C-alpha cells in the first residue's frame, strides 16, 4: 500500500454549549486518504463527517473543542501548526468545495472576480492575467460562455453551474494536492448530480488530485470512489475499498445504509 497523503488519527472532541456543558460528538476518528484517488466519507446527518472534514482545514465551528487526535498531512500535524502555517496550506495545498455553492460564493462580487482573486492570492500576477485564468478554469469545468459567465454574480447562476464554478475555484484555480468536497451534490437535480460527480472524477483522474468526498448518499459513491469510510454517531464503523464495502459489508450499519441506498436508487424492486 502507498503512503497516505493525509491521515486522521484518534480525533475526538465535543461541542461546548453557552452554559459550558460539553456534548461529545467525535470519538477516536481515524482514517487515511490515499493519493490520486477519491475517498468517500459516508454517514447520515450528525455522524460527524462534515465536522471531521472542516477540522482538517481548521474551519470547524468555534464551539467545537478537540480533546485529542492528530491530522497528518505531508508529514506534519495540521492540528499542531501555528495559524499562519495552516493558512498557507488552505487553498494552496488543501482546498474545499461546499454544499450549496450559491451561498458559498460571495454575493456582491462577480464569479470571475472571485476566482481571479483566489488565483492572485496563490499565484500572484496582474488582475487581467488572473481573470484570463479564471475564465479558463470556468471553461475547464464545462461552463458554457465562460467569458460572459465570469461577469455574472452568483445569484445569476443555477445551483449546478455555481457548483461547477466552485469546483473550478477549489480544484483548478487553487491547484491543491487535496480537495475536500462537502456534500457537493446535495440539493441538486439527480441528472446534475451525476454530471457534477463525473466532472469530479474526471478532474481527479486528469490532474492527479486527491479527493475526499463527504456524502450521505452511497449511491454517488459506487462509480467514482476508490475507498469508503463509514461513520456513525461520531465513530468510524468501517473503512475499506469501495468494492469491499459494496460486496462484503461487515458492519451492520453499513449493510443497512447499503440496503437503503439500493432501495432508493432502483426503480424496480430489488430481487431478494
Amino acid at each position, binding site marked *: 500500500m502507498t503512503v497516505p497523503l493525509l491521515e486522521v488519527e484518534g480525533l475526538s472532541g465535543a461541542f461546548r454549549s*453557552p*452554559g459550558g456543558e460539553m456534548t461529545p460528538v467525535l470519538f477516536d476518528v481515524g482514517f487515511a486518504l490515499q493519493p490520486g484517488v477519491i475517498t468517500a466519507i459516508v454517514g447520515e446527518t450528525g455522524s460527524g463527517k462534515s465536522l471531521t472534514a472542516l477540522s482538517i482545514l481548521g474551519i470547524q465551528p468555534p464551539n467545537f473543542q478537540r480533546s485529542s487526535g492528530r491530522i497528518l498531512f505531508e508529514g506534519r500535524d495540521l492540528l499542531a501548526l501555528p495559524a499562519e502555517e495552516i493558512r498557507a496550506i488552505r487553498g494552496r495545498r488543501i482546498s474545499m468545495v461546499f454544499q450549496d455553492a450559491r451561498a458559498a460564493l460571495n454575493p456582491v462580487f462577480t464569479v470571475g472576480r472571485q476566482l481571479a482573486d483566489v488565483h492572485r492570492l496563490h499565484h500572484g500576477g496582474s488582475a487581467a492575467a488572473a481573470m484570463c485564468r479564471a475564465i479558463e478554469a470556468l471553461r475547464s469545468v464545462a461552463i458554457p460562455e465562460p467569458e460572459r459567465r465570469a461577469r455574472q454574480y452568483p445569484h445569476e447562476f443555477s445551483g449546478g453551474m455555481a457548483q461547477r464554478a466552485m469546483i473550478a475555484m477549489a480544484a483548478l484555480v487553487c491547484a491543491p494536492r487535496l480537495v475536500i468536497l462537502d456534500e457537493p451534490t446535495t440539493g441538486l437535480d439527480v441528472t446534475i448530480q451525476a454530471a457534477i460527480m463525473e466532472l469530479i472524477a474526471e478532474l481527479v483522474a486528469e490532474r492527479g488530485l486527491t479527493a475526499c468526498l463527504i456524502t450521505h448518499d452511497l449511491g454517488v459513491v459506487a462509480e467514482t470512489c476508490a475507498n469508503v469510510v463509514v461513520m456513525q454517531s461520531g465513530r468510524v464503523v468501517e473503512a475499506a475499498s469501495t468494492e469491499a464495502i459494496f460486496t462484503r459489508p461487515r458492519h451492520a450499519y453499513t449493510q443497512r445504509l447499503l440496503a437503503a441506498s439500493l432501495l432508493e436508487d432502483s426503480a424496480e424492486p430489488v430481487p431478494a
Partner: protein
Amino acid sequence: MKRAPFSWSMRIGLGILAVYAAVALLALVWTPHDPLSPGVGDSYLAPSAEFPLGTDRLGSDVLSRLMAGTQYNLGIALVAVSIALAVGSLLGVIAGYYGGPLDIAISRGVEVFQAFPGVLFAMLVAKAVGPGVINIILVLSFVGIPDYVRLARAEVQSRRNWPYAEAARMVGNRSWQVAFRHLLPNSTGPLLAFTSINAAFVSLVTASLGFLGLGLSPNTPEWGNMIARGQDGVMTGEWWVSFFPGLAILGMTGAFYLLGDALSDLTDPRRRR
C-alpha cells in the same frame, strides 16, 4: 449560540427600570425638599451634603426635582408606547391580514408620516396642541404609530397563508379571530422588542421637547426642562443643574435599549445562533 431567556442585558435593563419605577413611586410621597418650590436654598449652590446635586438658578433642589421628574419621563414613555403599540398593531394587522384597498390606504398613510422628520413633526404638533402631559403623550404615540403599523403589517402578512392560519380558518374562526388571536400573538416578540427601543426614542424626544419649552409647563421637573433651566449655568460654570438630568436620561434610555436588544436577541431566529 442559544441565549438564556434572562441574558445579562435583560437583567441590567429590567433592574435599572425597576429602580426608576421605585424612585418615581418614592417621589410621590417623599423627596428631600419640595421639588416645585423655588428658594429652598440659595441660587446655584454647588453639590453639598444638604443638596447632594446642588440647587438651580431659582434655588430649587436638583435632586428632589430629578426624583419628581422620574414619574413624568418614565410615565410619559410607558403610556405613549402602549398607545402606539395598541393602535399601531391594530392598523398593521388589519392592513396585513385583509390587504386590498384598506392596506394601500394604511400603508400610504404610513409612508407619508414617515417622510416627516420624527422629532420635528413632534415639535410641530406639540406647538400646535400646546403643552401638557396628555398632549405630549398623544403627540409621542402618534409619531410612533407608523413604525408599529409597518412592523405588525409585515409580521401578519408573512404568516397570513401559513398552514396554521389556514387550519384556524377551516375550523370556523372568523377572520378577525384568526388575525388577532392566532397571527398577532406570534408577533409579540418582535413587537415588544421594538416597543422597548421605541420607549428609548420617546424618552429622548420627551426630553427634547422639554428642552425646547414645547413639552410640559416650565416649572415641571421634567428632565429636559431641567437641562434647559441649567443651560445658562453651564456657560458660567454651574454645570450641575444640566448635568445630572442628562445622566438620568442616559440611565433610563440605556435601560430601554438594553431591554430591546435582549428581547430581539430572544425573538430573532437569525440572531439566536
